[in-house]
């Protein structure tokens, strides 16, 4: 019976450059904190070994601060860390991994050579480190030339997709039947950020801390238990992620529809731990669009960790009330009608005119409020 933790894709040091500073710092810190969470899980499950299936770092040279932070956190944990270079942090000669192999604490092993490593008396790790960002060859072919003593568990550790999703030639592609072909008891894979079990003996653990809107995943790690050589591994996924990344698309026909969506969102998740990409579309009156935008920016935007808001497809169709709200006559009314006419035409000017009209609407509202306050 062997028991270990399978994790991957920590991508420590990911910059999140498009975000404001405070969101970025929070997300980066959450990735480092995942190490502590995994250590805690391993202690809690009495699994002394943690196998990290690649992409420990976001780049092959993430900088000393990130490396030190990671090593310190790993060093103080009462478990052993088996780190594999992935495509993000491929083991470039003389680079990061060479230093890790030299400087890492005793309980951290950098698996930079494709050679079997004894994990325990009963288990051997067969690592398939990536030495380049992309290779057109199967990195796990090396497993075939790695005989082990009978009665020892063979645990493969590799990083790469088992299936190509793009039209271009797949890189680092791993055959789906690698475990069977190489007589592995278990093949621990990294690359895909969501937990994914492939057959009986192969699985992607997913990332412990989600980092993208692309797929909705729950951050976590796998506890792997194998009763004996040849036995089917028992996997259990444990959630560890702090933030959820959500991609929402709302279509609105009025403020009431907006209220419904907001309420649903709030009910379903902890907004403070949500990173939200929101695309709003529909056609509203000018007043409604202004109101929706104001609430998105000044309410929802402040509630979530970060809001990536896209209102390009939320169109304003000014009503007679909107125009009347601006003025019945006079300069503002003339300008509003002119902008409205421009907004109805084609081209980028139309969008700009629409924005200008909205801006005028807002400024008018403010002026009216100011006048009201004075009165």
């Amino acid at each position, binding site marked *: 019976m062997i028991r270990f933790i399978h994790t991957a894709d920590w991508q420590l040091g990911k910059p999140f450059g*498009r975000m404001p500073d405070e969101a970025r710092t929070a997300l980066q810190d959450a990735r480092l904190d995942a190490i502590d969470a995994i250590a805690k899980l391993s202690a809690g499950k009495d699994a002394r070994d943690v196998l990290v299936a690649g992409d420990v770092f976001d*780049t092959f040279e993430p900088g000393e*601060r990130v490396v030190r932070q990671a090593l310190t956190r790993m060093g103080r944990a009462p478990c052993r860390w088996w780190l594999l270079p992935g495509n993000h942090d491929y083991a470039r000669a003389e680079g990061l991994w060479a230093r890790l192999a030299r400087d890492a604490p005793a309980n951290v092993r950098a698996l930079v050579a494709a050679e079997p490593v004894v994990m325990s008396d009963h288990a051997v790790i067969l690592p398939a480190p990536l030495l380049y960002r992309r290779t057109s060859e199967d990195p796990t072919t090396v497993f075939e030339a790695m005989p082990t003593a009978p009665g020892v568990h063979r645990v493969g550790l590799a990083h790469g997709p088992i299936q190509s999703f793009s039209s271009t030639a797949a890189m680092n592609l791993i055959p789906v039947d690698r475990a069977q072909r190489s007589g592995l008891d278990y093949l621990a894979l990294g690359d895909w950020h969501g937990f994914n079990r492939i057959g009986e003996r192969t699985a992607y653990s997913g990332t412990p801390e989600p980092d993208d809107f692309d797929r909705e995943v729950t951050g976590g790690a796998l506890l792997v238990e194998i009763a004996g050589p040849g036995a089917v591994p028992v996997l259990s996924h444990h959630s560890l992620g702090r933030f959820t990344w959500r991609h929402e698309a709302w279509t609105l026909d009025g403020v009431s529809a907006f209220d419904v969506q907001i309420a649903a969102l709030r009910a379903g998740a902890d907004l403070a731990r949500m990173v939200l990409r929101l695309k709003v579309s529909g056609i509203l009156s000018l007043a409604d669009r202004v109101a929706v935008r104001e609430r998105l920016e000044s309410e929802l935007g402040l509630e979530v960790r970060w809001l990536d808001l896209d209102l390009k497809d939320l169109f304003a169709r000014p009503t007679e009330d909107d125009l009347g709200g601006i003025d019945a006559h006079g300069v*503002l009314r003339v300008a509003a009608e002119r902008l409205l006419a421009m907004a109805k035409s084609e081209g980028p*000017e139309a969008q*700009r005119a629409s924005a200008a009209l909205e801006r005028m609407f807002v400024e008018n509202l403010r002026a009216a409020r100011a006048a009201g306050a004075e009165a």
Partner: protein
Amino acid sequence: MKIRSLALENFRRFRAPVRIEGLSDGLNLISEPNETGKSTILEAMRAALFERHGSAGAFIKSLRPWGDETAPTVELCFELDGTAWTVAKRFLQKPQVTLTGPGGQVFTSDAAEEKLQVLLGFERSSNRGADDESRGILGLLWVEQGAALSLGAPGRIARETIQSVLAGEVGAVTGGKRAFAVTAAVETALADFRTAKSGQATGKLLAAQQRLSLAQIQHTEAQASMAHFAGVLDRLALARAELDRTERLAADPVQAEDVKTWTRDLEVAKAAEGRRREAEARLGEAQSRRQQVEARATARLALALQAETAAKASAEAAAHLVEFEPVLSAAVKAEGDRAEDLKAARAALEAADQTAATALAAERAASRTRHLVAAFARLDAAERLAKDIDGLREDLSSSTVTASILQTLQDLSGQVGQTQAALEAGAPTLDVTLRPGAAGKARFNGAAATEGRHLIVAPATLDIADVGAFRVSPASSVAAQAAHRRATEDLGAALDRAGVASLDAARAAADQRRAAADRLKELEIRLETLCAADTGLDLEAGLDALRGALAGVDRPPTPPQAAGGPPDISGDAEGAAVRARMTERAAAEARDAAGEALKAAELRGQTLSAASRDLKVRQDQLAAELASARTAQPDADLDAELLSARQAEARAQGEVEEMKATALAFSVEELERKLANAGTRRRNIEAERVRLAGEIGGLAEAARSEGERGPAADLEIAREAEDSAASDLALITEQAEVLTLLRSVLADASREATRQYLGPVTQRVAPYIGRLLPGATLELSDAMAAGSVSRSGRLEPAEDLSRGTQEQLAVLTRIAFADLLLEKGRPVSLVLDDALVYSDDGRLETMTDILSEVAGRMQVIILTCRKRAFLHLEANRVSLVEV
């Protein structure tokens, strides 16, 4: 609104209190000369209403009289809708304000200021003081000196007031305050993106642009760092690979085996080489011996030959010596003969020289005698001449009448003549005719009278015998007679001194004296000639020299004169001597030549003799040498030794060839070269290993330190930062574009609206314009200033018009605004401070006519320094009065 009175104190140039009173409803004219404070009046009116009493800004301070620390005070009484108001303000020291209204209501402090603002429609002024923006309508209608020219647009409050008034009239709203607020908000928002004037990026837009360019720079830098880092890693990998290769080379077994073989071969080759050298040495020895024997044989042969040659030469020399004997004898004889010849020639020369010397002495004696004879003859002649000269000199010294004395006598005689003539000029004449026989009967001045005419120059007496005496006295003057007498006496005295009786005698004596002098000169020249210098006798010129030379010398007899001169004895003797000398010289030369020939012959003889002797000695020597050699080793023995030596050499040569063939099997040079190359290679490999180890150390350290900085992460961050900055900039740029579009649309709409509602103002001003510029119409600008004038279809911008026209238009548009506001019941008052200074007389009259009409509707106050220009005007004339 009507201004009634104004009082000020400690205000600008007015320290003492002054007042203006009695301002009427219609047209008021305050004409004061320059520098009397006319403009201060308008300043004070403004201060009373618009400047806050508590203000202590620079402008308020400037209201104080120059150099004073006093408190400017002003009091203004005005009427509004028939009710009287008085505002009194004191600035700077204990500032205060009091507004007194109808029914005795009194406002003070800020309440007073606020009440004024409400009453007259203006706003609280800023700390810097009131300006046209805040003064409202009155700011527009109270035109200060020089401001009319600016054609300025109304300030904001004035514009708003006019707009609000017009809104009702044209039935179109401008949007009022809200439109202004929105426009201003848009302007403010845009100002955060682009500058108002040039539209250049500023604020957020500029910051976004700067962020992007900074991000781009950082991205580029991160790329460079990354590239450098990648380069370091690549070089490190290369260096490690190179070190591996070098290590393998160092441990190459084939190379080691080669070196071993080469070393062994080299030893073998070196031994063979040693044997070859020994054989060569033996060969050298044999060669040397053979050469020695050969040399000896050759020497023996040469010696024999030389001995033979020497014997032959010796014999020849002896023969030559014998042949030379007679030649030497002949030379000895010739030399003796020539010496004899020379002796004879020298004797002949001596004789000839003797003869020539004798002849020359004789000739010299003859020549002296000739000279002496001539000298004595000259002395004789000279002595004679000297005697004559002495006689002549004596004559000359006794002759008294010199040329100058004669001249004096002639002059005196002339004077006698002249005085005589003067005496005779008026003298009576006495013509005497004597009858025959009467002679003696008549006596004139005691002498017998003679016939003819007698001049009577002195009293004369004519005695006629028997008749009596007639005394005649001439009428001529006593002076003339005296002059004549003096002249006659002078002449006489002079003649006496000269020792002559008459002038003629004097003339003769003078001539004689001159002739004697001429003769003397001639004789003296002749004497000089005779006593000339004589080189033949070494004689100097002069008679005394001649006398001295000849004294004590016997006079020689006069020699006989040979025909054709004396004979040339000495010339002949000389010729003979020369010929003798020539002969002697020729003989001497001949003797010398014979001597030389003899010397040469003797030398030749000696040479021949010596040569013969030497050759004989050599012959003997060689013969002895050869004999000695043959005794030591007979010729046959020598030949045998030579043969033996030659055979030994041939043997040694054979041995050497043999050894060379053996040594050729190995090349020592090549083996040494190969071994040296192997050594160099080994050293180079070692050096390369050391170098690579160093390079790897450096690169590894660089890889570590650069890697620790996280170049890949930095690059990722920089790339994302640049993307982010670029999309930010795009967003912000779009915001700026949106605002720009909004501003432009608002501005267009505002301009059109303005044009629409300014119609009523244009209509009101039209009749005035028609009177001032017939056929022209005025177009107001968007900002309500006079914009342009249209005349006969041509549009002229107002600022291009003449200054006069500009100020007139400015006043007329203000009248139009005032009319408009008046109709709407707003408080208006028109104050013009020298607003028409550029207007010509005709225009000024038209303008004053218009102002007179306007004054029928509202109060008009004209402040001017040109009293005469407004003399024609019917107006209430008011003056400043000191209180």
